[in-house]
């Protein structure tokens, strides 16, 4: 397989996952800022809700790393 295609795949994996996280975080982030502005005590919970979608980009990262590492097998030739 062409290692270039694998590299594109890895890039897409983390790039699209990042976009997904961004979309999910825009709502959570806005609400979190609102809640914290209303009452400082909500800060801790807000942070938690705010970073929950970040797991999505971590999935993308893991896949990208696995793809990137597997490029070695194909690039030798």
């Amino acid at each position, binding site marked *: 397989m062409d290692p270039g295609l694998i590299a594109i795949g890895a890039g897409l994996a983390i790039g699209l996952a990042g976009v997904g996280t961004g979309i999910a975080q825009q709502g959570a982030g806005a609400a979190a800022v609102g809640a914290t502005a209303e009452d400082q005590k909500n*800060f*801790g*919970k807000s*942070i*938690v809700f705010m*970073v*929950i979608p*970040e*797991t999505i980009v*971590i*999935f993308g*990262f*893991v896949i990208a*790393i696995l793809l990137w*590492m597997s490029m*070695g097998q194909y690039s030798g030739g």
Partner: protein
Amino acid sequence: MIKPERMLRIAIVGPRRELGATVQSLYELDLFHVVDYLGEDPEVKIGHPLPQAAEISQRLLKLRSIVRALHLEEFKTGRKVPVQEIEQTSDQAIATLEKEVNKRTEVRQALTSKIRELELQDDILSVFAEIGLPLDSYSDSESLSSFSGTAPSSITDSIEPLGIRAEVVEAPHGKGYAFSVFCAKKDSEAVQQALGSAGYQEMRPPHVSGSAAGRIAENEKEAEKLRETLSGEEEAIEGLREKYASLVLAAEEHYSIEIQKAEAPLRVATTQNSFTIDGWVPVSSLQVIKAAVAGAAGSSVTVETLKVSKEEMDEQAPVKLKNPRIAKPFELFIELMSTPLYREVDPTLFVFAVFPLFFGLMIGDLGYGICLMIAGLVMWKKLGKDSQGWKRLGQIVLAGGLFASLFGLFLFCDAFGLPFHPVFDEYGTPVLGGLSWESLGVHVPVEAQMEKLVDVKDLLAISVLAAWIHMTVGYALGFANDWHHDKKHAATKVLWLFILFGLFVQVLFMARGSELRDGIFLFFCSSFNTMTFSFSSITVSYVAILLIVGGIAGFFIAHGRAAMMELMEVLSLLANIISYCRIAAIGVAKGAMALAFNYVVASLMFAGGNIFLIAIGIFVLVLLQLIVFSLGSLSSGIQALRLNYVEFFLKFYTGGGVDFEPLGYKRKYSMKSEV
């Protein structure tokens, strides 16, 4: 140890005349959490404030008015005033001071508004000065009307088409025109309409005589005089501030405490002759309370321990976290989340053990670690002087920085994103041209155990191992929390432990390939490493499948159909495990960013051997390093916290407990005098 401080519910009962002395002694102890009496029993009334309350609140009213008038809220005082000195200050003195302060601030206000008025009049007069007519010509007459003001364009063009007799005087003003129009009274409506459609802004001439320009000069003179008087008043007020600030602030604080004490009976049950104060104390402090109350109010007041059912205890007992001194700062994170329930485990110790470790792994850099330790020390010693929050945050950052430095020195061997020695990838090619501290002439005799940019899979494996350990502890705590409360829930936690281990084992089977990963694999799976089957080129462990399926079967036995929901949760548990990969992700991403910046700037800097280029290069490099440092620290901190809050706490934590808020006070401006 890992539970909050054990509490006892007590009632303090005594004759009413001793209520004041009892409340006084409880306030000094800072150990008694009052349960407010809400008047449930019609025979027993809510108490009345102590007799001195009215007098104290009068005094407070005056003091607070002085604080506001002198803007003392943000004032930093140099000394703490002894309570004795405050109490010697007579009401007469406070009243005199209040009068003087009020008089001076009123004078100041009057002067400021007079100056403002003159300035406004000058603004208007400047328009009339441009028009140039004497101000007397605007005075009312029986047959003439006058309109004055400003307009964006010339007014003559709007008035002429009306075909009436009107006199227009115009002068350019700013971007438009200033003008006056005189016409016969009967035409005034038509003129007004024409002016309106030209977009004019009306200005009424002030009722003064003479020329506008002369008037402006007079006003200036008067305003100057007023300003002089004002600055004299300001100085006098500043003098009052300097002279009385510490006393006033201390007195305000002292009487705020006294009024709290005097109003404490409003939270207490009283009959005609007796009182009962209901509340909670830490078990360890019962004797202290007994001794203090007996000392202050004599033997007529008794302290009784009340019997409380377990449910009531779990629901109502206030929570005072109890941790060793070294772990105390991490209580900040628990408070940010929510106070644990009385029956729950207090997770502070676990956060204390894990947070700096995760944070350190993510930063993993000697240079940034040392910077973080310095930042932590500054927060603790400088900013933390007045703020508990900063103090604790500083201590946490210090601990995180320490671990970051240790990992940076011994595990990753890099500082400021630059490795100590050249890094080679798996084919033996130097990464980024072998840029390292060694190539810059700095030799550190420590060899890296792991390279952030090469051994990413190993870092991922460490993250997964951390996930398993952390969440296993989480489920174990969940089991401990639920055991006395709900056996079925507790059993579910055990099933989750099986599933978690199954998932972990399966990940290990898939992750083999390096010395470290094989080491972890053999440590956990050596006894069953051949019991596998192959599924589309993935090695699947029978043991892992057995553990996961066994766990799920357990859910169905325990919950029947409701277990379908739990089935979905298996997937989120897998997501949780992968979620720990953020430890590797942030470490790698931050390391790569720093190295890339270093590489790009260094190669440009030394390209021409130009001093100017080198100077710019150093400036840019410092800037970029600062970005990596601040972004990296912030995200590492938040992500390490998140792993605790989301992946760990959700396995066992309910929260929502009642904070332990004992009667007591903190003095900032005043101090209790030694007797």
